[in-house]
């Protein structure tokens, strides 16, 4: 499949979806909130820092502070249709996540967690479910050696597999496994897929690692262009097989791979439907949008007013039409890629998916 060879039908779809995105931006309906509940972590992953800069010296946010901020949103969100995704650091290092969950559940919010699985026992899972948890995402980055290499811990594979095996046993729980694909696990994709199918996992989301933070100086973390393209062919083929619902993460306009490797066309919803409350109280969009992307702080600002009146950098993306995006003929569908891949001060784009796939053809 050639990335640039977009069919007429898909072009029409992209045109329609472009208008959909414009309308959604005008509506900016908040329906997804990340809470970075801690910056503490029990692993020291090689790729950490490519997405965010962790500082374990920031204390965990008290639950009353977080819930207080959520309560301020009552006039602008429909709780039943607003997902709260609790992230970290490692969420399960906090023993009081269930308390936060119960408060969210009482208010009608569905909530879930993202975890590395190291601390997910059957007992802890039951405790979370009893607090109303409806969704869980676990990271699994390859088979034994490659997972342990990336996670920098020789026991992490064994532990995460135990955790993953718990998931299919729970009725009415939405779960998926996410994997960061890199040079060390690339050749294992098929084996990893079969392992997940054997365990009973229904959904598998994969990401790639980009040259930011530690990944900038570690070539083993980044796929070469041929591998990068082959990954999308693998996802498209796996989706056709229908044994597991595999998809690529939410970033990057993918040309003719649009709708072939994800359910939806590309749409970076940061600041349009998605907000986050970071560990220090900062209000942002996705948790990996930090620094100048921050729009306020729950300890100083009313989060509802911030959502309604700020976020201009997210809702008018014309500033991203610089560098390689300036002359790109697909800009109208892409609008500068995911904002976490773009320096908000210089406008520089760290990574273009389309370009990298073309290089691999």
């Amino acid at each position, binding site marked *: 499949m050639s990335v640039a060879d977009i069919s007429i039908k898909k072009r029409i*779809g992209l045109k*329609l*979806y472009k208008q959909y995105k414009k309308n959604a931006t*005008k509506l900016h309906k908040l329906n*997804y909130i990340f809470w970075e509940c801690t910056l503490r972590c029990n692993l020291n992953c090689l790729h950490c820092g490519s997405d965010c800069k962790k500082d374990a010296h920031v204390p965990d946010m008290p639950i009353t502070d977080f819930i207080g901020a959520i309560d301020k949103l009552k006039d602008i969100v429909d709780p039943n249709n607003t997902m709260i995704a609790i992230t970290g650091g490692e969420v399960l290092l906090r023993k009081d996540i269930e308390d936060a969950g119960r408060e969210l559940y009482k208010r*009608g919010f569905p909530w879930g967690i993202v975890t590395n699985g190291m601390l997910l026992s059957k007992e802890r899972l039951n405790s979370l479910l009893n607090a109303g948890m409806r*969704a869980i995402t676990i990271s699994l980055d390859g088979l034994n050696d490659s997972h342990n290499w990336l996670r920098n811990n020789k026991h992490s594979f064994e532990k995460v597999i135990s955790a993953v095996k718990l998931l299919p046993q729970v009725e009415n729980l*939405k779960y998926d496994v996410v994997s960061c694909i890199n040079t060390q696990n690339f050749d294992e994709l098929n084996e990893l897929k079969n392992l997940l199918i054997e365990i009973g996992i229904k959904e598998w989301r994969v990401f790639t690692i980009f040259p930011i933070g530690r990944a900038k100086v570690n070539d083993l973390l980044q796929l070469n262009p041929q591998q990068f393209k082959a990954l999308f062919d693998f996802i498209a083929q796996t989706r056709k097989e229908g044994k597991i619902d595999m998809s690529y993460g*939410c970033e990057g306009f993918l040309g003719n791979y649009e*709708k072939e490797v994800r359910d939806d066309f590309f749409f970076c919803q940061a600041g349009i439907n998605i907000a986050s409350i970071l560990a220090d109280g900062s209000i942002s969009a996705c948790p990996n949008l930090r620094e100048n992307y921050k729009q306020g702080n729950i300890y100083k600002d009313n989060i509802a007013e911030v959502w309604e009146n700020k976020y201009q950098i997210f809702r008018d993306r014309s500033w991203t039409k610089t560098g390689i995006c300036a002359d790109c003929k697909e800009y109208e569908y892409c609008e500068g890629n995911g904002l976490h891949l773009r320096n908000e001060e210089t406008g520089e784009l760290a990574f273009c998916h389309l370009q990298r796939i073309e290089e691999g053809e």
Partner: protein
Amino acid sequence: MKKVKIKYYSAYNAIILSLLGILGLTSSCEKIGIDPVAEYGVPSAKYIVNGNVTNSTDNTPIKNIRVVMKGDTAFTDNSGNYNIVDNYGFPGNQKIDIEFADIDGATNGNFHNLDTVVEFKNPEYTNGDGNWYEGETSKEFNIELDKK
């Protein structure tokens, strides 16, 4: 944003999603009723409300009363019956706002509008998918409107 603008853009996007569906490019937002998800889907359940709208004075059925519940709109038929659906409710006990409005003036009689709440307590669901979608539940909700 003003309510009318919200309705306009929401309806506009619903049309776009329908067109994408016709093209065979269905979006997950259509399946679960909210905008595309970033990390997770959202648990959902279908709430069906049906009933009869009658004149409080003589108990006769009222035709063409507009019924609005969340994103759905219905009109009563010649027998005063209506059926309305919230496809994307949250599983569990629910209190859902429902509006009954006389929008045709004197044509079928002049009646006061009514904004009320339909309550689902310990709902039982059927036909869930064992995953995000809990299933559907229904309730009969009969209404009497007062004449102006």
